[in-house]
């Protein structure tokens, strides 16, 4: 496309009916401890 460059292949809609296994790390257990940051967590099943 000339005016738009999409930089990712989003999966959010696809996980409305999948996921939820809960095997991923609790976000607060990594580095923050004072804020909630979930968007940068890694899906354990896609590692």
């Amino acid at each position, binding site marked *: *496309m*000339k*005016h*738009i*460059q*999409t*930089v*990712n*292949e*989003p*999966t*959010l*809609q696809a*996980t*409305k*009916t*999948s*996921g*939820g*296994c*809960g*095997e*991923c*790390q*609790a*976000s*607060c*257990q*990594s*580095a*923050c*401890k*004072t*804020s*909630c*940051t*979930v*968007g*940068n*967590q*890694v*899906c*354990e099943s*896609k590692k």
Partner: protein
Amino acid sequence: MNNEMSTKIHKFVQNGMYILLDVNSGAVHVIDKMIYDIMDIFNGKNDNEVINNLKSQYAENDLKEALDELHILMDKNQLFAPDIDVPPTFKAKGLVKSLCLMTAHDCNMRCKYCFGDTGEYGGERQLMNNKVGRAAVDYIIEHSGPRKHCEIDFFGGEPLINMPLVKDVTEYVRKREKETGKEFKLTLTTNGLALNDDNIKWLNDNNISLVLSTDGRRETHDNMRPDCGGQPTYDKVMKNFKKCVDSRNGENYYMRGTYTAENLDFTKDVEAMADAGFDILSMEPVVLKDSPYGLTEEMLPEIFAEYDRLTDFYLKRHREGKGFFFFHFNMDLSNGPCVAKRLAGCGAGHEYYAVAANGDLYPCHQFVGRNKYKLGNVFDDLDEGAEDITRYFRESHVMNKERCKTCWAKYFCSGGCHANADLFHDDIRKPYEVGCEIQKKRLECAIAVQAVLSMEKIGKKDYKPASVNC
């Protein structure tokens, strides 16, 4: 644009790029100025209105071409994607899979911003004993159901002053792993003062991930993180951290700092960490109420400008081949968490508990000592009525928080930190506003970083940054 559609997108300018985020799909589009302007009006079905409003600024054929591209995105569900409801994958009740062990309600430092009252957490200084530690391990195994991966963070106070407990719990975890098939990830958060050859070797041999606390520059660190006698600690801890990180081949750690009102130029602190030879970094805003070190609404413009500088610095180092990981910028826009995870958030109070030194359970480490949130203890499970609290935490996701429902950042931050909301509003469903604003700016920077790296990776040579001063 009508309100219904405006909550489905977020457009912003960062690092010379016009960026469009589709909230409900997570699609990130780098766009030109014309699309940026179109999105002030476009709602998916008003092409003529867009053209009539903008034809004095842009050629009509160009507008039609741009609108065609937007319709392609809509057809791919990457623009105005449908709203998301609570999915069936988000179970009504959480399974506890993570514990934060308050191994020591005591500390060998006296950090001025400590949310744990330098270790006391509103109570007495005490150490966790092995009986409590082992009961905590049993608790998580019993309450994590079929989940294979569990986590324990050795926290404090300072956990290294209670190494016998850390060692005993680790030994017990490894035994119970074999018996149950569970896999535990163990983390230890330390100020580094008590690191030595012996405990470094033990931590390495036992695969303990480390969170290393320091604040960056010597003057920042020594100002905020003195020892019990008020003496500076920078030289001691940095020497220990270097030895420790080198001994584990630069892996399996995070170096984590806190910025306060006294170092709003915190990019220099991140730079100091990087220049000291560390490359897995985080820098967090302090959260304090009624404190001279606390962050206020008036400081936000300065903080936002600093995140712009941090973004520039991050990209500069990356391009120089001296890149580093920054916790909040490490975002996989294509393979991020599922919807259920984004609702569960940090899991505090329903998937994640803190265990106080005496075995009492709290929703997370920051709630320890806030008596109305005591949930029970590791020996007797939850108190009567505590299930109502855990249910409330479980249901306090972004779809049940008024301010979050229409916020573009909701699927990244998951509604923010419950403890911070409680601290400022006495209500975990009312997010802490300054934290929200910082979070949103940081997310814009993170998305821009990922967009830049993605464009550079695919060799988008004709990509021309917009000439805007952001």
